[in-house]
């Protein structure tokens, strides 16, 4: 496969759809858990689940795009250690894009709350109701979420560093609108 200079259009679209949803789900998750039980909280939790499940759904086209479209090689000026860190980060981000919503969905099932996507489509329960398992999965969701938060932070910081300090093409390849 010849490495192109750009991400393919579908790759860019699906990156940003997932990125936006994750960047909404994260703060929403932290905000809603701090609220005391109220109709508003129930509503926000439902929205959170729907957004999260959408991320899981979008992973499928994303994987297809990743496997079928060539990905640009890192910019030439990038040192080897940065390439290594970047590719590890990307692999872990992919893993978390599945792991975080999946743990959320499993937690919901274990706690006895089926997920009804958009309030319309009942999703199957991944595990039976089990209080102890529910608490465990809740910790898993929180742990994976913290990992996601840290990696996304690094990822964004790195993208901005490439753009502002290194002044290379890294960010532009993912944000074609920025093309100078």
């Amino acid at each position, binding site marked *: 496969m010849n490495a192109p200079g750009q991400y393919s259009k579908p790759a860019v679209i699906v990156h940003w759809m997932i990125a936006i949803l994750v960047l909404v789900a994260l703060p929403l998750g932290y905000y809603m858990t701090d609220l005391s039980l109220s109709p508003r909280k129930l509503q926000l939790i439902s929205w959170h689940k729907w957004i999260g499940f959408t991320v899981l759904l979008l992973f499928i086209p994303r994987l297809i795009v990743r496997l079928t479209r060539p990905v640009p090689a890192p910019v030439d000026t990038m040192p080897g250690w940065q390439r290594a860190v970047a590719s590890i980060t990307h692999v872990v981000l992919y893993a978390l894009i599945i792991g975080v919503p999946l743990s959320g969905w499993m937690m919901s099932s274990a706690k*006895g*709350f089926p997920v009804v996507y958009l*309030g319309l489509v009942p999703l199957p329960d991944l595990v039976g109701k089990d209080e102890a398992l529910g608490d465990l999965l809740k910790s898993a969701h929180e742990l994976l979420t913290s990992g996601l938060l840290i990696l996304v932070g690094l990822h964004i910081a790195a993208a901005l560093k490439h753009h502002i300090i290194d002044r290379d093409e890294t960010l532009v390849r993912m944000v074609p609108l920025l093309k100078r």
Partner: protein
Amino acid sequence: MNSKRLLAAALVSLILPLAGAGAYAAQPAGSFDQVLPAKNRIDFVFKQMNVPVKGHFKKANVNLVFDPAAPAKTTVRLDLDLGSIDAGSADANSEVVGKPWFDLKTFPTATFVSSSVKPLGGDRYEMTGKLTIKGKTRDVTTPVTVTQNGNTAAFDGGFTLNRLEFAIGDGTWSDTSIVADEVKVSFHVEAERRAAK
């Protein structure tokens, strides 16, 4: 107390239970009225953002007299310990105790008292009665299926109640787009035949 009176008292206390047994025998032979409390189940399902959430009550005191030969004479009384609720999660359990929901301090129990039972054919019946929750009384009607198995009978049924008619989930919680008004209640009670014992 002299010894004669003691003897008389002893005799009376011996004979009284026998007289009681005689009274039992005089009852209609086939009444089921010995409720097996451990078998009682009161379950409910409500919808929260369209998500069905299951709950149940752990303590229900049921008194019933059911004679298959005279079903119209059936009487049922339920005293439900609302504090024994499991509303699906720890969060919900501590929430429903409060004023907007069951207001447990003022209304610790809910009651149901049957007013009529009519046979629908086979082992199916229709029971109507007064349900009182949170100081509000409403008529409810529920189908009941009776499954007799030797000297035990199981009573199963279910109906839908509208929580807002009982002011369950007042104030901000009355928004039915979050928690639906309809609550599906189902029950299972077992009783043994008294005469058989």
